[in-house]
């Protein structure tokens, strides 16, 4: 991960390095079974070089605490490692340039549960499993058993915490999804199968 961090610091694969102050690689427990993936650093993250440290980060930390987890128990990162100017949406070419870093993080952490925060992270992970992007409102809270980069992961998409700051009713949905995460964690003794296992001859 140290080498990956050094590569991100000196990365020039897209133009975002020109406007950002600090790249934000990610932080947390490298041995965690749970990985959170957000969209991109915002203003506070750009200044501090750490993921989810602004208002949305505060909410994420509260949600983790509500299910008995701390930030140190999980690994937190974003699809993009540099802040897009004015917090605009990531552009496809930026995701294409930056996502190999996320792929490598997935292979280093080898999480069994991935929680995607928002549509960009969800679309990216679904695409890595060969699936089409879907509306976040239609997939949030649903559990996907996927093969991503050769890893068997359980994907739990949910809203980005920032969305709940702008639309308070979404906070309840986020809380529901974090409770689902709690259930998933307690299910470690369970194994899920795909229906495809029963379609093979």
């Amino acid at each position: 991960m140290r080498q990956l961090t050094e590569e991100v610091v000196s990365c020039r694969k897209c133009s975002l390095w020109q406007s950002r102050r600090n790249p934000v690689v990610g932080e947390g427990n490298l041995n965690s079974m749970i990985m959170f993936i957000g969209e991109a650093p915002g203003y506070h993250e750009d200044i501090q070089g750490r993921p989810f440290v602004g208002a949305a980060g505060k909410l994420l930390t509260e949600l983790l605490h509500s299910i008995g987890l701390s930030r140190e128990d999980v690994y937190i990162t974003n699809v993009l490692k540099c802040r897009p100017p004015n917090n605009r949406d990531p552009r496809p070419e930026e995701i294409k340039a930056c996502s190999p870093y996320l792929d490598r993080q997935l292979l280093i952490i080898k999480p069994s549960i991935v929680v995607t925060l928002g549509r960009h992270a969800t679309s990216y992970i679904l695409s890595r499993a060969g699936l089409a992007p879907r509306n976040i409102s239609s997939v949030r809270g649903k559990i996907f058993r996927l093969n991503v980069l050769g890893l068997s992961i359980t994907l739990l998409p949910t809203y980005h915490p920032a969305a709940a700051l702008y639309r308070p009713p979404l906070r309840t949905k986020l809380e529901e999804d974090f409770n689902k995460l709690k259930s998933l964690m307690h299910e470690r003794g369970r194994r899920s199968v795909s229906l495809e296992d029963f379609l093979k001859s």
Partner: protein
Amino acid sequence: MTLKLIFSEAKQWKYLVDTLSRLIDEASFIATPEGLRLRALDPSRIAMVDFVMPSEAFEEYLCDGEVRIGVNFDEFKKIMKRGSAKDKLELEVSEERRLKVRFRGRAVRTFSLPILELGAEELPTPRISFTVEAKLLSDAVKDAIKDAEIVSDYVKFETGEECLLMKASSDRGSVEVEFTRDSGSLIEIDIKEPSYAAYSLDYLSDMMKAYQLSDILTIEYATNKPLALTFDLPGGGRLTFYLAPRMEA
């Protein structure tokens, strides 16, 4: 190729497409002179939809070959929601490869949506030896799923003495629903061996939206094997959902 289908109750198709849209994003109906079918996996590969409607179920059915009609179900649902109780539904594939959806009621309303060219691979039928088959009242099962959702994210199916049990529990509480012949909710049951399996309530809840299509549903399952939920449709049609189990390690 010609394809023109008229179905006497648009409302039935409204419920059908609404249910399918909860599980699948895009899929192809395949029309042949024998009837219409659709088989698709949900994006998570945990559930599968298998829909068949024979030509006899339609008021008019004109199809002179195999026609694939790939649709985006979000878009199709929006159109189907516009169908009223007394409308007839007409589906037609135009020469420009667009699907025309026509409601014939107080007015003739014609929508048109693009036909998607989706993969031609057809899914096989899941290979499962079911050990339990039960016919139940659809709305009783729908209520049981709602009960289970209060306390858990999944539900266990178990067999009892000539009865079917649905159990859900978590640190939030527990619930048990018993379906028996005496209570009227269980119509038939065939238990080859005592069987139990757990399934996701998220998916079951979406599948049970089809309760509006049929008063009776058939549940088939086996220990740690997929569940099949079958709704018999008017005119000899059938809508079956398969759902992968959550297995104990």
